[in-house]
């Protein structure tokens, strides 16, 4: 009996030690912005966070799902940010969070592989470009935005090597724009993102 308990404990130890290690860089790490505590600070570490004010209300990533996806299909590349609105981050039991997704088409950019995302380094995309379609999904409602002004800037694209093995591409940047959402003028301000893109959130088909 004692031997079984010891073997069980050892197996449990090995499992618990080995399971989480692969996900360390996939976690979201929220470092609050000093000026706007509801948003993550602008970082370039691949903290898997993003945030912006949508009509002055914070829209940030959630802790438990991939905050972004890059989807290349049909000769088009879409960069999407998935999170929620509301500031109930630490108090889920009083949560009135609304799931939201903001997506940008990246005109003229069709990566052949994950590492081609490095071409986005120091790139500014004019969101008023008719080829740059911006969509917003709130709960189940989906809106195509008519962007009035603003831009999306990929300030930095980094090829992250961990212990001499290629791990992911880190995309960090900022954005700010005004748009008509269901014909209502709305602002999307102080946007920032710091995202790790790897095989689990980069899709090409």
């Amino acid at each position, binding site marked *: 009996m004692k031997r079984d308990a010891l073997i069980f404990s050892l197996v449990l130890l090995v499992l618990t030690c080995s399971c*989480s*290690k692969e996900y360390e860089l996939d976690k979201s790490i929220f470092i609050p912005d000093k000026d706007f505590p509801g948003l993550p600070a602008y970082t370039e570490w691949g*903290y898997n966070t993003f945030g912006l004010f949508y009509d002055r209300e914070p829209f940030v990533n959630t802790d438990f799902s991939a905050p972004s996806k890059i989807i290349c299909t049909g000769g088009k590349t879409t960069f999407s940010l998935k999170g929620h609105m509301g500031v109930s981050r630490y108090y889920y039991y009083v949560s009135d969070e609304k799931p939201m997704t903001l997506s940008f088409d990246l005109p003229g950019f069709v990566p052949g592989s994950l590492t081609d995302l*490095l071409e986005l380094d120091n790139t500014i995309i004019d969101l008023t470009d008719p080829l740059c379609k911006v969509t917003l999904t709130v709960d189940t409602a989906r809106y195509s935005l008519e962007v009035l002004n603003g831009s999306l800037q990929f300030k930095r694209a*980094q090829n*992250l090597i961990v212990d001499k093995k290629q791990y992911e591409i880190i995309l960090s940047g900022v954005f700010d724009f005004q748009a008509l959402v269901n014909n209502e003028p709305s602002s999307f301000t102080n946007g920032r993102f710091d995202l790790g893109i790897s095989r689990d959130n980069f899709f090409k088909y």
Partner: protein
Amino acid sequence: MTMMKKLFLLALIFTAIGYKSAGQEENRRFLSPEAGIDGIGCEAPEKDYIRAVTDQDPADYYSDQINSLMTVYYAGCRFEYRMFNNLLGLSAGLRFNRMTTSIGRESYMLSDPDYFYVNYYQSGQVTEYAKVREITQDGDYIGIPLEVRLYPRKEHRIRLYYKAGLSFNLKVHSRSDIVFFDSSMEQYRADVMKVVEKASPYYTTFHLGLGVKIGKTTKPAISFETYTPIGVIFPKGAWLVDPIAGSGLQLVLSFPLNSVKE
């Protein structure tokens, strides 16, 4: 005036007071070998080269965080002059200090990894992290401790006393080490160590304490001292750890050198 000169002057004043009082009443001089250990709490490291491991939510932060530790072991010898009927003792000496500082990850959860990421290379669009379990630094310092002891009780086999002191410590040698998660990274040790700060060239400590001395004044005696808080001051600059305050324990042997009655 440099810090070293100030301390030298202070040591001279201590000694002069001791000699001046020697002509007035019974005084005793002691040679006291001593050894001790100080544990110093440090700020959690916020470094440009270390990737955070948790949110800054307090619940997350305290259950899994990157910590700094600082321990100082020392041994030395000092002279003590007693005056005012052995009520006050002034001492100065020389110490060898080994300061061990480290940065590691501490977690309450077994499932959390015991390593953190060090960003040791950035060039163009390539960024390299190394998974590191611990960074340690041993610094050897020669120190000059200056202390005042107040013995409120008259002669007794067991005497309680109070002390206050400061110590200036100058680095003579240091070495840094790193423990990688993946031992194959050993060959890149020099590259990774380039981003780690050097040991401070000097530091100053000050403390308040309490001691108990066992043995008669005229005979060899043993003392146990505890002191808290200990303040540690590093010079301006970036060092491996950022000390806050700590506590220490000291063992002292006292050998009376003479007993003069004038």
